[in-house]
């Protein structure tokens, strides 16, 4: 397996409470990996360690390593803003910035000074809005506030905004849970289109969504990774009793 992210001996604590217990996994490049498990199993915590969001919560402790392309992102000389540029995030609820639609997409590119002039920025904004499947809907109102969009449109805007900083990895923390069914489908379709170019890691507690999206599956329970492997194997022939019970909807 061509692993893009490798997690080694990872332990995570909120105050004294251990949220991740000795996690060792590998996440394959340019595929969709789905992390699933019951509420409170640590799947969101695990996701947050991939873009160093875990440290935003006060009184947390983390030991172990998370390697992206072989580089430990927790090394002292690693710049956290670089990590977050490479590892993008699609949050649970769309959270547009208090700016226009155009400025939302251009914001990250400006931060990292990714283009030379206005024209290039403008083209890039169009490009990423097209990838997110939003361009046609907003091309005539680029300078309207982002909040004038529907929730589903906002989530696609957030996708475009995230892609605009040219990440290699996209994290999705239940990225469709706040959306209506049609908008959810739309986001899922985008993620499937994009998986050739991006390593995608999605946390979900919808089993059906996991089955629709996953190439690779990680099943967690009480802070431990119980089972991980290609989707076909885990869904078709789970090795562990706990995984089997979860897939059968027993808890």
């Amino acid at each position, binding site marked *: 397996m061509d692993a893009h992210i490798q997690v080694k001996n990872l332990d995570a604590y909120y105050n004294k409470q251990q949220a991740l217990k000795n996690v060792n996994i590998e996440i394959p490049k340019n595929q969709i990996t789905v992390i699933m498990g019951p509420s409170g199993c640590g799947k969101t915590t695990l996701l947050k360690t991939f*873009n160093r969001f875990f440290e*935003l919560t006060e009184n947390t402790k983390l030991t172990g390593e998370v390697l992206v392309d072989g580089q430990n992102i927790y090394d002292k000389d690693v710049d956290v803003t670089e990590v*977050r*540029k490479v590892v993008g*995030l699609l949050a649970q609820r769309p959270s547009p*910035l208090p700016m*226009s639609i155009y400025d939302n997409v251009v*914001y*990250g590119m400006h*931060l990292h000074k990714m283009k030379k002039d206005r024209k290039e920025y403008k083209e890039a904004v169009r490009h990423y809005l097209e990838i997110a499947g939003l361009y046609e809907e907003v091309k005539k109102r680029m300078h309207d506030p982002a909040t004038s969009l529907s929730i589903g449109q906002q989530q696609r805007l957030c996708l475009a905004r995230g892609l605009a900083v040219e990440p290699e990895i996209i994290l999705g923390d239940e990225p469709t849970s706040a959306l209506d069914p049609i908008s959810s489908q739309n986001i899922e379709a985008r993620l499937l289109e994009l998986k050739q170019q991006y390593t995608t890691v999605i946390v979900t507690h919808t089993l059906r969504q996991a089955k629709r999206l996953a190439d690779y599956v990680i099943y967690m329970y009480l802070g431990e990774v119980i089972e991980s492997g290609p989707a076909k194997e885990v869904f078709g022939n789970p090795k562990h009793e706990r995984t089997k019970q979860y897939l059968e909807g027993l808890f």
Partner: protein
Amino acid sequence: MGMKKNRLERRHLMEAFMKALMYISFVIVAGALGLILWTIISRGLPSLTWDMVSQVPKGGYYMGKEGGILNAIIGSLYLAAGGTLLAILLSLPIALYLKTYLGQSKWGEYVRLSLDVLWGIPSIVYGAFGFALMIAFGMRASLLAGILVLALVELPIMTRAMDEVIRRMPADLEHAALALGSTKFEVALNVVTRQMLPGIVTAILLAFGRGIGDAASVLFTAGYTDRIPTSLMRPTASLPLAVFFQLGSPYPEVRERGYAAALILTIIVLAVSFGARWLSGRLNKYTIK
């Protein structure tokens, strides 16, 4: 169903009582405001002539003869605008620093506590403090000294008001910007300030209102003069002191003009309030509700 009637009646009675209490409080507050406005309007309006706002005092003005208080109007605008501008330059960075790097930490609470203490210090003490410094540096009463002391008076109010607003910044929004690779400073500058701009404008307004209405802090530091200041080093008149001096006059006409000066001050504060509200309404366009 009759068994719980008694208890219910007591609860409803309590509600009626509390409602009456709130209503009475409202009437008292609204009544006081109305009475103040009535007093300055009824006593000040008859003396409020065009000369009052377009001329500086002429010889004999303080005995009821010709002239106006343009010196105090311009002086107050200079003082309050200068003081507020200077206070913004210090308050916004402090408030952002509190939010971004200190948060709810021990040091953050210490800074908030010191600001609250500064807020509570009477402005005459600021005036005396400024005066002592001026003597030490051999400075005379001047527009500059008045501006500096007013900035000090306004600083704690503005900072704490901004802090209370900025603290309510939705975490989701900050995280969205961080996820794109912003530094915390970039989040503060590009996102927090934008999202909280209407509240920040309100904080500035609050401090401006305190600054322009403050008499004690400018009494020793800015002095008083019948001329409009032509440089930062000249003394300047101010409206609160114009009110104060004229109300203390033995001449009834001059006392009436004192009320007119108070009316002008009130109108300026109202105009600035409405202006700022209008502005913050416009700035509201992009904020996330």
